[in-house]
């Protein structure tokens, strides 16, 4: 294994790529649960879509710094590792948000 710890690993952007997906996934999954009483009381299902878009957009934005990190480092170094992990985590998180969002279109969250 190469001496990855000696390499530059970049600043905020690459860490945004690694962490943003899970943070916004957490915000989505907990937010969906928290707003359900309000949505069911008011009948305004649009808030599910607002929350989903508000968390999916910054999650997808995390692809960019991760892709740049993945491309910028030729060897299997620290930056490339973070970039690759950021791509994977962002993809999984985006899929998780979509998986939690899609049922809103077909199921009634307020059905008893």
């Amino acid at each position, binding site marked *: *294994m190469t*001496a990855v*710890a000696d390499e530059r690993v970049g600043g905020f952007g690459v860490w945004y790529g690694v962490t943003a997906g899970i943070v916004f996934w957490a915000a989505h999954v907990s937010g969906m649960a928290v707003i359900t009483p309000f949505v069911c009381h008011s009948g305004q299902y649009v808030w599910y879509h607002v929350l989903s878009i508000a968390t999916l957009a910054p999650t997808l934005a995390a692809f960019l710094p991760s892709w740049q990190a993945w491309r910028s480092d030729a060897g299997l170094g620290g930056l490339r590792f973070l970039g690759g992990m950021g791509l994977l985590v962002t993809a999984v998180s985006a899929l998780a948000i979509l998986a939690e969002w899609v049922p809103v279109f077909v199921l009634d969250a307020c059905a008893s």
Partner: protein
Amino acid sequence: MSGIGATSTGPVIHVRPGRSTGWWGVVFMIVTESVLFGLLLFTYFYFRAGQGEWPPAGLPMPELRGSGIRTVVLLGSTFPLVWAERSLLKRGHVAKSAVWLFVTMAMAGVFLIGHVQEQFVLWEELAPTETAYGSVLMTILNFHAAHLVVGMLALAYSAVHLLRGRITQKQHSMLEISGMYWHFVDAIWVFVYSSLFLSPHLLGR
């Protein structure tokens, strides 16, 4: 089972038993945030495995005295929180419960002040944008601090609602879920402290 039934005296609303959606929201958040910290600690150990010396030569070992004191303060904050919950749920003492919540927040404040002071020192010593060690260390510590701030805000929200009579002995889910989140932040710190501060000393350079 929820639903609305009719009797001769009017409709009867059957309340669905079980946990509130807020409780489930925090449980989901704890699960996903645990994944986040697991990922960050995995990154730390990945970098470490690729390096002969850890911390890399020329960089200081993590200091144990100040961080140890802060650890005791943070983990100790669990006790006033438990007392706050017990004061309200078992005895119905609202004021006493609020006081214990403020004690919990004060202890968290002490931890946070120490964290900020530590960040100034680390920023000088580690150059986090230059080395993998400094970068991953600062990221994990600041992520934990961010979670701590969220926990403090949740406790402050609970304390205010407690004093305004919106959290009572019978209706206390907000206090319960903010407490759950706080215990999560405490538990995560055990892993963070063990990995970032203790392990370099225990395993050697």
